Structure formats: C-alpha cells, structure tokens
C-alpha cells in the first residue's frame, strides 16, 4: 500500500514538474476588452493593438526568451469585467492584465487585480478615476480626460494667442458642451485648466445634445463677445452650431472641439468645408502625423493590414499598441515577472516624446498615469484634418482664417 502511495506521489511530483516546466516555457498575459455587446467594435479595435504588440514581441524571440501567450477576456459589462479578471488571474495565472477601452469596466476590473496584486495596464480608457484611487499596480499609458480638457485650453495659450499676437488673458473664452458625462467631464477639466492659466471665461453653457436649435446659445456667445469657443459635442450639435453660427454671422477667432463630432469626416462634409475651415480639434492619436515624430507608425500600419486585411478602423488600436509595446519593453528589463519587479521596471521607463508610433513618450508619475501622454491638436484645412501641434508631429502649419 505504502509502495503504491509513494509511486503515486512520485508520479504526481513529475506531473507537477512537467506542468511547471511548460508554464515557464511561455508567459501568460491577459487582454481584457469588451469583445461583444454594444462596445464591441471599438473594444475589439483596442484589443488588436495589444495583439499586434505581443505578436511583434514574440517574433523577436519573446519576453525574456519566453513566448507570450495572450489570453482574452470579454468584458461585456461591469460584472463580467470583474468575473473575467478573476478568471484570468486565478484560473489562468496571468502575470499582468491589459485593457480595457471602457472606463467603467476598467475601474471595476482593476479592483480585482489590485486585490490580487497583479499589475493592470489601462491603454485606452480616459476617466480620471482609474488612476486617482491610489492603487499600487494600476497604470495608464494613454491621456486621461483631464489631459483631454486641458489640451483645448493649452491650445489657446500655445497656438491661438501667439498667432493672433495677443495676450491669452485678453481673449474672451466661451465653453459650450452637451450635458451628459462626456461633455460635463471634459468641460469641467477645461474650466479648471483655464482658471489655472488665468484665462477669462465669459460663458459656460451646457445644452442637451438632442436640441434642434442653437440660435439662442450663439446669440449669447455673440453678446458675450466670445473670441474663442471650446465645444464638447457629438455629431448633430457640432453641425448645428457651426452652420447656425455661420448663418447668424457669429465668427469667433477660433473654435476648438474636443474629439467627438469635430473629428469626423462626415461631420465636416455635412457642415461644408468652407465653414469647417480652421476649426481645431484635440485628439489623442491621429494617423496622419509627421513620420519623423512617430517612428514605427508605418510598421504598425503594415503589420495591421497584414494581420487584419484592412486599415485600422480608429486610432484606438494605435494607442493600445504603443502602450503595450512600452510595457512589454519594461517587463523585459524587469528582474522577474513578480508584480513588484514589473512595477519597478515600469516606473523606470523613460521614453522621450517623439520616440513612439503615436508621438508621445512614456514616463509614469506617482499615480501610475503616463505624464507624457499628450494630446495632438488637429485643424481642418481644405476639408482635411491636419496635425498642427505639437510642432514635431505637425504635417501642416497652424493658421487662423480671417
């Protein structure tokens, strides 16, 4: 009996060693994105960036000479984001999780990983809350929503005032925004940034995105003598505002949109290219930027096309690709795949601006936010979106129409 037991024990030991052996042959990483449900399209687009970065790393020999096995989790809603994070960590034993595209799901899932002591890398979602909770193992490589709001305000100081040759404090700034979470959070960041810079806010008007008439808002801006209008909007309200302003004869010196409707070609076509001319928009990534400021962008495009058969459907894949690539490079330098070793290596990352495929550099601050993640300023010129800021990434010269 004891003989059988010892044989069994030995067999078990060998099995365990074999299992341990195969585990050390490849390192497991989790990719948690909404792959079904209403966020599926852009969730999947974001996950493609991770897949491409991992594939590239594996082709170059893998992470510390181990092949990376990417395990996907489907964060279809907040509850499932939590469940899938648990599964990836406790059943699959991943060393780190990459995600998530949706802010709410990122906040939910990273609570699980933080408790388990597994690093969580957010690559796409913008909510400030993700990195504001004092978590030890949560990092974000992309710009946050306060960067988003701040960028529009900084463009007044860095671009608009110098071009007009005036003191930025002498410009009347008006902020208008649709009144859901998107508009309120971005405009809140705009107000905070404008106050910090001592700019003169003359109006701050929320409105419902379902409005069918914006003439009263425009007349208020006219009365307030607004020089610069910052709008956070969806498609229809962008079109209404720009068209009605043109008809009413309200011509601010500059209009700056925050992503949303301003970045879309169909909106520019609907507004009319003459009216759209000169409108500015802040965005976290754009494919049409100076290749010298975004080394690797062309390789990314080629690799994307080879793997998926089409060009990227949005820039989310580019931002997640750049974030993943930087983190994998850090993990390569880490002493081990232990959470604290990864954390130390990620903090040691120091990629200057202009050295990644998206343009911005990587350097994490105390909160785990990439402080070099900066927004681009684009401008509509002759019916096309042209990158005008930062200068290194610019494809065209910033100009204000008269």
């Amino acid at each position, binding site marked *: 009996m004891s003989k059988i037991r010892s044989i069994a024990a030995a067999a078990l030991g060998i099995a365990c060693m074999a299992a341990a052996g195969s585990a050390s042959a490849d390192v497991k990483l989790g990719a948690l994105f909404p792959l079904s449900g209403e966020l599926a399209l852009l969730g999947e687009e974001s996950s493609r960036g991770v897949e491409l970065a991992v594939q590239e790393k594996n082709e170059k020999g893998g992470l510390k000479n181990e092949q990376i096995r990417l395990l996907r989790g489907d964060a279809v809603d907040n509850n499932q984001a939590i469940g899938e994070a648990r599964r990836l960590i406790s059943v699959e034993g991943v060393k780190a999780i990459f995600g998530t595209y949706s802010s709410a799901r990122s906040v939910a899932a990273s609570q699980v990983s933080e408790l388990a002591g597994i690093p969580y890398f957010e690559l796409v979602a913008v909510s400030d809350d993700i990195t504001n909770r004092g978590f030890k193992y949560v990092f974000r490589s992309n710009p946050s929503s306060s960067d988003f709001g701040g960028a529009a305000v900084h463009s007044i100081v860095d671009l608009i005032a110098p071009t007009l040759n005036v003191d930025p404090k002498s410009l009347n700034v008006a902020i208008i925004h649709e*009144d859901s979470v998107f508009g309120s959070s971005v405009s809140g960041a705009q107000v905070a940034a404008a106050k910090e810079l001592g700019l003169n806010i003359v109006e701050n*008007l*929320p*409105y*419902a995105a*379902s*409005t*069918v*008439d*914006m*003439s*009263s*808002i425009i*007349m*208020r801006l006219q*009365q307030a003598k607004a020089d610069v209008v910052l709008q956070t909007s969806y*498609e*229809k309200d962008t*079109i*209404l505002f720009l*068209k009605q302003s043109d*008809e*009413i*004869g309200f011509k601010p010196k500059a209009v700056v949109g925050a992503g949303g409707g301003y970045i879309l070609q*169909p*909106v520019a*076509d*609907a*507004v009319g290219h003459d009216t759209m001319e000169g409108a500015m928009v802040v965005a976290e990534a754009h494919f049409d930027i100076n290749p010298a400021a975004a080394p690797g962008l062309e390789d990314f495009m080629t690799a994307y096309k080879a793997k998926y058969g089409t060009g990227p459907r949005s820039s989310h894949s580019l931002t997640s690709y750049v974030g993943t690539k930087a983190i994998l490079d850090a993990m390569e330098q880490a002493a081990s795949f232990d959470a604290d070793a990864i954390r130390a290596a990620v903090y040691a990352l120091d990629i200057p601006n202009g050295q990644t495929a998206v343009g911005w550099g990587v350097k994490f601050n105390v909160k785990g936010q990439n402080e070099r993640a900066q927004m681009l300023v684009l401008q509509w010129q002759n019916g096309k979106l042209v990158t005008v800021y930062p200068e290194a990434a610019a494809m065209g010269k910033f100009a204000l129409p008269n």
Partner: protein
Amino acid sequence: MEVFWQLMINGLMLGGLFAIVSIGLTIIFGTVHVVNFAHGEFLMIAMYIVYLATTSLGVHPYLVAPPLIVAFYVVGLLVQRFVIQPLLEARDPNVQIFATVGLSIMLMNLALLLFGANIRATPGEGTRALIHMGGFRVLSGQLVIFGLTILVVYLLQLFLAKTHLGRGIRATSQNRAAAQLMGVDVLRIYRITFGIGLACVGLAGALIAPMYPVAPTTGTYFVLIAFVVVVLGGMGSLKGAFVGALIIGIIETLSSYYIAPSLKEVASFLLFLLVLIFRPTGLFGSGQAME
C-alpha cells in the same frame, strides 16, 4: 431690445418648424385616437428620401415634396389598414400603442441597416439663404416652412369644414358610434385620416431635410416636442397645434437665452403642466376628441 425681437423671430420660426411636424400627429390622434409613436421615424425616413433624391438625382429638395406627399398618403392608408385596423377591436387600446412603438423601432433599425449610423446633410440649395428684414434676419427655408404651415392648416380646416369627406372625418372624431349609425364608413375615414396625417409628415420631411442633418435617431428629437405641442394645443385641433407650436418655439428660444440653454425644456414643460392643470383639454381642445 433688438436682441429680444430677433429672439422672438427665431422663436416664431422654430415654432413653425414644430408646427409642421405636429400637424400630422394631431390629425391622426384626433380622429383615429391612436398615439402614433412612429411619427418621428416616418419623418426621419422622409428626410432620408429627400437626402437620397437630392444627392443622387440632383433635384431641389422642395421638388421631392409632391411625390413624397402622395407616397406617404399611400403608406398611411396601408399602415392603417394592415397594422392599426386589425387591432381596433382589441380589448385593450394599449395594443395599438405597442404596435406603433414596434413600427417605430423597426423603422429606426431599417434606417440604420440601409443608411448606416453616419449623419447626412441634404444640400441647402438656397433654402439656407439669409434674408434681412428691417435689421432682423431669417433663413429663406424657415420662412417657407412658416408660410406653408399656415397654408396647410388653413386648407385642412377648409377641407374639414366644407367637404362631405371632411364632415365625415369630423363626425367620426366626435363620436364614432353615432357616425357609424349615420352611415359613415368609419374604417374608410380612419384610413384616409391616417393617410392625410402621413402626407403631412412627407411634406414636413421635404421642408425640414435641407435645414437639419438626418441620422436614424433624428425622429426622436422632433417627436417629443410634437407630442407636447399636440396636447398643449388640444388633441386633434389644427389651430391648437399651430398656436401651441409657436408658444413652445418662443418659450424655448427666450428661456435658453435669458435663463440657460439646458433649462429650456424646464420652461416649456412647466407651461405644459400649467395648461394641463388649468385647461386639461388643451388651449383649443373641445374635449370631444377625448372620449
């Protein structure tokens, strides 16, 4: 003061727009006693048709109006005959409401399937030209909408008052059973009324398309206002819908300038509540339409 009068003009023009959208709804509601929740979606489909006709055939948006009115009249007959009529005798009148809600969801998703989610703008073709009138400004398209709305209300009133068919419609809306006893073919009246209601939507679509971009959800923006206008003016009353629409247009414009753009609905719905409390039949409602 100049700003105030410009706002009043803007408000009147916006009211004209709300009125043209609401006429069809109030006619159907007053006579067939069906709340047509698909009203906004029919408007959206009409706007898409105008967009397609102008961009692919190069015709002026207003030229699409006559065929659109005829086509929508026929669609109205068919909807009444094959969707609403089989449900008329249903024990619970809510069933008809569910049917129109279903129709609305179906049309919205049909548009999503056919045209995609992208927003489309019909070319203006001169309808967005600025007209200056003594220091104030309006768009030519807004004036056309305002003028045509008055004309349509007047003609429909005349039709209801003077013609045999019109009297049949009024009789049916006042008392269905009595009208039937007097030999009125009530089902036929219902079909024609639904047809007229949708024909008005077709006209509205042709007039609004060059002024506003269209997307599959566009109908929902207009339909809520249309319901408010119809109830405010008195259900089934054409004059009421017109006056109600102007009041809502002016209140929304003034309140979003003088109070705040995000509070304009508060102002218009407050008035709506007050009217309902002190005059439950609406401004011009006779009460007869509300069995």
